[in-house]
């Protein structure tokens, strides 16, 4: 048996072997050059389960260095169990700093949310993606979805969107059109977060480990939600509810049920944002037309 103890590290730096990390970086460059296009990649196994953030982990580990500060949130929460596990793994293997503070992080890994605090040109956000294929709901086979993307054949997608409208009256679930070319799954981030991808100052990277796909939205890239001329996309509406702790109304609010199982209250979902508001240290929030409208409505 190989005696692992003789090496300084039990595993390679940042876990993945150097050849594979290089491969992932090259695929990332390709993804950035073709915004919204899904690039197949090797997707080695991680010591974290498939479907629990391995794709984003590949990206984080391929781009991170010792000088980086890493933040990871799960459903807006730094202290959620899976986030804790991933953070300690990256901290241990990449020997980098970690933080809960959105503003101080250079690499932010996330599941299902974009932080409320606006990200800058110095930051990279890495999304955990369970299903990278927005066309999967209308076409189960990848050999056909790849062809549909290549030909820009999105007719079925529009029909599905229309059906969604007929059935629920709601079309605000994603997917998005990137750079006027590819329909892309923004990962299941909330409708509230989707407009923040448009023309963002930060680099957005998406990793789907189990499906072995990487894609990207570079800074200052057009990202539009799919919508009709007469039925528009909209961000989540909380019917005027306010956060129980902070009184905040303009943030993604999570509904939390009381012990009785009947009554409920709302809370700001992004824990770091909430902490900062409570500390009287309100950070700069994103600015998109939906938020502007929402603020205006609430002021009246």
């Amino acid at each position, binding site marked *: 048996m190989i005696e692992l103890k003789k090496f300084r590290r039990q595993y390679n730096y940042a876990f993945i072997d150097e050849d*594979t990390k290089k491969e992932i970086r090259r695929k990332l460059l390709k993804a950035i050059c073709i915004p919204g296009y899904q690039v197949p990649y090797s997707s*080695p*196994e991680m010591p974290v389960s498939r479907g*629990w953030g391995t794709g984003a982990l590949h990206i984080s580990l391929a781009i991170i260095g010792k000088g980086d500060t890493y933040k990871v949130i799960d459903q807006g929460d730094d202290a*959620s169990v899976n986030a804790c596990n991933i953070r300690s793994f990256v901290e241990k293997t990449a020997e980098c700093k970690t933080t809960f503070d959105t503003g101080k992080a250079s690499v932010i890994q996330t599941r299902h949310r974009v932080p409320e605090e606006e990200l800058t040109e110095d930051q990279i956000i890495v999304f955990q993606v369970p299903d990278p294929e927005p066309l999967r709901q209308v076409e189960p086979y990848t050999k056909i979805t790849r062809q549909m993307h290549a030909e820009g054949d999105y007719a079925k997608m529009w029909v599905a969107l229309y059906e969604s409208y007929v059935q629920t009256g709601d079309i605000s679930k994603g997917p998005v059109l990137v750079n006027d070319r590819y329909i892309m799954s923004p990962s299941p981030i*909330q409708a509230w977060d989707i407009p923040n991808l448009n023309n963002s100052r930060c680099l957005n990277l998406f990793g789907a480990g189990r499906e*072995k796909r990487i894609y990207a939205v570079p800074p200052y890239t057009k990202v539009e939600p799919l919508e009709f001329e007469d039925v528009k996309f909209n961000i989540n509406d909380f*019917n005027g509810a306010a956060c129980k702790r902070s009184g905040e109304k303009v943030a993604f609010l999570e509904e939390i049920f009381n012990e009785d199982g009947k009554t409920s209250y709302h*809370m700001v979902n992004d824990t770091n944002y909430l902490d900062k508001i409570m500390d009287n240290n309100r950070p700069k929030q994103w600015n998109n037309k939906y938020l502007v409208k929402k603020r205006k409505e609430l002021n009246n």
Partner: protein
Amino acid sequence: MGYVAVRGGVEAIANAAHLVEFYRLRDNTPPIEIKQLKAQFRLAIDKIMGEGGLYAPEYGAIALKQNEGDVFEAAFVMRAYRATLSRKFYSETIDTENMFVKRRISASFKDIPGGQILGATRDYSQRMLNIELAEENETVVREFLEKFNIDIDLKEIKKYGRITGILRHLGFLKPFAKEEDTSLVDVTRDAVKFPAPRSGRLQMLARAETGGIMAIGYSSIRGLGGVHPTIGELRVGLVKIYVKDRTGRKRYLGKVEVTEAETINNELEVGQNGKNVPYMSIGYGLCFGHNETKAISMGILDRAMRDPEGRGVAHDQEYVLYHTDGVESMGFVNHLKLPHYAGFSAGLSTMRKAVKRKEEEDQKLNPSLAEV
């Protein structure tokens, strides 16, 4: 922090890890030694090495011990470990005709050149729970070994030609009619694209979870698919692995145990005069270790996937290959345990809106309902 009720943290994770370790050790029994596992859990370790994609019996045994005998988790640990190692070489093609054969059977021919070698198998034993094992101790083991005491003259061991060679010689054997992509890919380095070349499909099957491919292979032979082969030859044994170093010299690395299955299928081809001409094709399976169920299932699915128009899921490359990788399917099924709070919360409010919309529409259509 800690204002949301359902919320874990660093401490909870550490405690959970401690607790699961406690479950493994709490009865304070002597620790199972790795060499014991290697010797007595041979088949479990073979599965772990095959699905883990790493031939390392010692590490397979450690993985089995670490995960309290959960073969899925153990294979997962092996794959994760494998991801830390660079791929430096590809081995030279293995010729299984040169295999050191431990077991070799054919279901197609009774008498085969070289003879059938039953080898170690439980196939023809009665599967009765052996209560005596509860009393097994070192004396019992020693006595058994003294009585067994076989002498093998290694010079007597010979090489065995392939049984499919007979069919090839008879001119019945042909590649399956449909054209095939013969490019060589490496599924551990690149994501497979569909339709996948045969090399990629076989690699994915070789790392697939045994039960997964068995279920789909079984669906085909039971009648939901179009493939129901005969086993031409099944062999288990040791093969030598060589790599070429940078100077082009062949270097011997060591032996690995493999199971190989060649399954025979009856096919029909439309001849020039419009009449059907029968021929035979091969389905191929090869996996690490001694795992006959897996090699045979591979054989069924290899042939089935060469005919994507066939009836049933066994013919469907994406269905078979995307859903039988144990590490991937186990991971995603278990991800359902992760919190989905934000999305679920948003879903509730969408649902409320939709229900409200329905009620408003109903009222508009039939205002009298509102009064009832």
